[in-house]
């Protein structure tokens, strides 16, 4: 449904995207996971025909995003990272405006947005600029959906949004996917990756890995241990000198220790810590999360430059 081939985007000397290729299937909920500045927005803007690539090509539903951009715009809905509706128009006026631009009416496609729009409908006479963050987000999604797009592109819809509203937003995306809409969504929150069918990890303009979240977590090439102690900051300092160390990072109340495969057991780690004066510790073998995968890939990437 979405094909990206060897896309490169350069702004002056800065390379925002380097040789990016992706293939997204019809009906997929696909996540683009990476921090600010990774190139997520550039890629999405190229797909939306709002930006020309320096090299390479991309198509959506077999329509070239450069040559057939007018047709591309008819079948896609886009929610940019920055709120970009008309703040001086009311909620209802904004929605009506977007429907009219695409030659449709609110009534015709109301079924698509019903679940989402109903939550802000009590405020439909309020100006969009005066809505809270969560409501703005729901209105923007409604406007992106009102012309019944086949593809929905969402640029960091949950950034700066609290944990509860984020969960609700992902539930909405699941429902839209079940209606058959292909969704490309970007996020800097690694925990949201597991909610996608497939994900691409992106960093400094390069795609580091593409797979289902499960595949990615299972294919973690090293060994991971969860270590907890009373003072994890001290414990992490000590673990920085353990032999065969790849990384040690805090994950909430515990540490994730990554060591080269086959070099350690829970006993050998515990022994190392005890020898260095740490007591009351627990060490368990554990599975990697997407964030662990991302950190490892970033580390390897940094070592090669």
């Amino acid at each position, binding site marked *: 449904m979405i094909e990206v081939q060897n896309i490169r985007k350069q702004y002056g000397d800065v390379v925002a995207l380097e040789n990016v290729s992706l293939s997204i299937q019809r009906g997929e909920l696909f996540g683009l996971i990476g921090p*600010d500045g990774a190139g997520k927005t550039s890629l999405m803007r190229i797909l939306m025909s709002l930006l020309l690539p320096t090299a390479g090509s991309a198509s959506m539903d077999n329509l070239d995003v450069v040559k057939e951009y007018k047709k591309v715009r008819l079948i896609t809905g886009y929610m940019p990272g920055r709120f970009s509706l008309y703040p001086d128009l009311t909620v209802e006026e904004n929605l009506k405006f977007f429907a009219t631009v695409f030659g449709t009416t609110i009534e015709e496609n109301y079924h698509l947005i019903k679940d989402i729009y109903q939550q802000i409908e009590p405020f439909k006479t309020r100006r969009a600029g005066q809505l809270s963050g969560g409501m703005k987000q729901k209105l923007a999604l409604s406007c992106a959906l009102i012309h019944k797009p086949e593809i929905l592109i969402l640029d960091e819809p949950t950034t*700066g949004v609290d944990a*509860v509203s*984020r969960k609700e937003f992902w539930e909405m995306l699941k429902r839209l996917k079940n209606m058959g809409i292909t969704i490309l969504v970007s996020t800097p929150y690694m925990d949201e990756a597991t909610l996608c069918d497939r994900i691409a990890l992106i960093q400094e303009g390069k795609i580091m890995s593409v797979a289902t979240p499960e595949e990615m977590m299972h294919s973690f090439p090293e060994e991971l241990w969860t270590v907890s102690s009373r003072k994890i900051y001290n414990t992490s300092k000590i673990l920085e000198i353990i032999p065969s160390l790849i990384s040690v990072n805090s994950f*909430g109340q515990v540490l994730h220790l990554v060591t080269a495969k086959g070099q350690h057991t829970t006993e050998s780690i515990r022994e190392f810590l005890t020898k260095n004066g740490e007591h009351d510790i627990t060490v368990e073998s554990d599975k990697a999360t997407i964030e662990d995968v*991302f*950190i490892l890939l970033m580390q390897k990437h940094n070592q090669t430059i």
Partner: protein
Amino acid sequence: MINKEPVIKVKNMVKKFGTFVANDNLNFEVYKGEIFGFIGANGAGKTTAIRILCGLSTPTSGEMNVAGYDIYHQTEKIKKNIGYMSQKFSLYEDLTIAENIRFFGGVYGMKITERKARTEEMLERLDLMAFKNRKIGDLPLGWKQKLAFSIAILHNPKIVFLDEPTGGVDPITRRQFWNLIYEAVQKGITVFVTTHYMDEAEYCDRVSIMSEGQIVALDTPENLKKQYNAKNMDEVFLKIAR
């Protein structure tokens, strides 16, 4: 922490905008040298409260004392004794690293010799010596945030307020940022921080959770998890806010 000497005292804090109550009778204390997490849904009233504590907005009523100064009459003294950084406002993009440091050092009224010494120490620490003449706008976000934090504590304030300092930052830099926070705490600086990353809530000594203008929970992460029978702070937050 352990030392329960309060550096922020808030009694019956109320802030109204017209008929809307943004802060509805808040009561809490922040102790010297602790990392105090300030968590809540969007629109819960966190930013309003922070702006008041920084002396940027006047409360409707209540008694508040920050770094030993009264919030109504000594806001200028408060500003000298605190640092502030947010995800949005960090530094001047058109100025170089060195120029930004000079500028903020001047704003904080630091002596030139002190500023120079602190600048050297900070650039060494951040490994940025070679880049001191680079414009801020050319730096990756992660560097900017680490630099913004270091500048926010350049004048060795008693308290530093961090408003979503790690939003959108990559997972490695996010952790390096927290290491900087720990280092600041070890120097005796009190940290007041907001975040949407619930794993970061675990790194705080105490966490307060706001909902609809009120503080609905305030305790150590450990006690909150026990109280709400949750395995992590994410679960605590969902149970409280939903």
